[in-house]
């Protein structure tokens, strides 16, 4: 959390002006754009299947680059791999333990930090508590 808090400005190219930060973060929080790739906030791909003899299908899929943003990798790197004595380096099998649960947890932390910055000034009173990650364990991926 501390790592993300310190670097959130760099992750999302935030300016120093609080008003500009607030405007930018409002945009990122709308429809959870913060977890999309920087180049794919509003990607929409339209598929048209034209078969006159059968039917005509016009599908418009809202494809967004969710969970593809580089901020996830940066946050995991900073937390577990940056230093030579960190957990990711000390445990060689740690890389294989990066799963969907960890990705979701990282996104939850990013979301929380973005919300704390939403006004343009970081709210120190906002602490990332275990309540924020409350939920049933994922039967597929398990817990960390």
């Amino acid at each position, binding site marked *: 959390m501390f790592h993300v808090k310190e670097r959130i400005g760099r992750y999302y190219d935030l300016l120093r002006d609080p008003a500009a930060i607030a405007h930018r973060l409002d945009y990122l929080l709308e429809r959870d754009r913060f*977890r999309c790739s920087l180049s794919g906030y509003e990607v929409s791909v339209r598929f048209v299947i034209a078969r006159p003899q059968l039917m005509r299908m016009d599908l418009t899929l809202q494809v967004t680059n969710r969970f593809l943003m580089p901020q996830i990798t940066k946050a995991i790197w900073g937390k577990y791999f940056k230093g030579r004595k960190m957990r990711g380096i000390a445990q060689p099998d740690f890389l294989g333990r990066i799963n969907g649960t960890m990705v979701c947890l990282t996104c*939850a932390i990013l979301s*929380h930090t973005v*919300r704390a910055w939403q006004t343009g000034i970081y709210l120190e009173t*906002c602490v990332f508590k275990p309540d*924020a990650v409350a*939920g049933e364990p994922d039967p597929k991926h398990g817990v960390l």
Partner: protein
Amino acid sequence: MVFSSSGQDANLMMSSEGLFARQRQTWATCSDWVQTMILKNIRETIKAKMEKEHGIQEECREGFTDDWEAVAAEVHSQMCRRPPHGQLLGFRHAQLHAFRHVQLYRLRVKLQATCVLEPWLEPRLTKTIHRKLSRLSISPRCWQPGYSTSLIRTYRLRTAHRRWLGG
């Protein structure tokens, strides 16, 4: 812009609850191959960064099998070549002896090469050769300038040195 409303803080805290569940709900909507691709992308990016910043590379054992017979043979040969403790000093002495021998050989080769290039040694070159010979505890018979280079190859060893080399 100043934000000081505690009511808004409370709202923010309330809205933070269940963030994780929300992310996982979105994650579950991704198809399996997309999830696999995302995880693979993250792991490969981190692995590349580890190689770049920490110089840590993945151990590659592909194509190799543990040939324990070969390992045992190698260990056995190393143990046979290792001198026992009592002979360690002699072994070290032999190593030094070989080292000196190689140095002498190199010097001789160098002198011969010098002879080809310079029929008459210049004072600077002669001093260099003399310094090298002195470092090897060798007294050159002729180190003054003006001597024929054919004579420079004959050098006189000190008695102790000659005995040490087995001469």
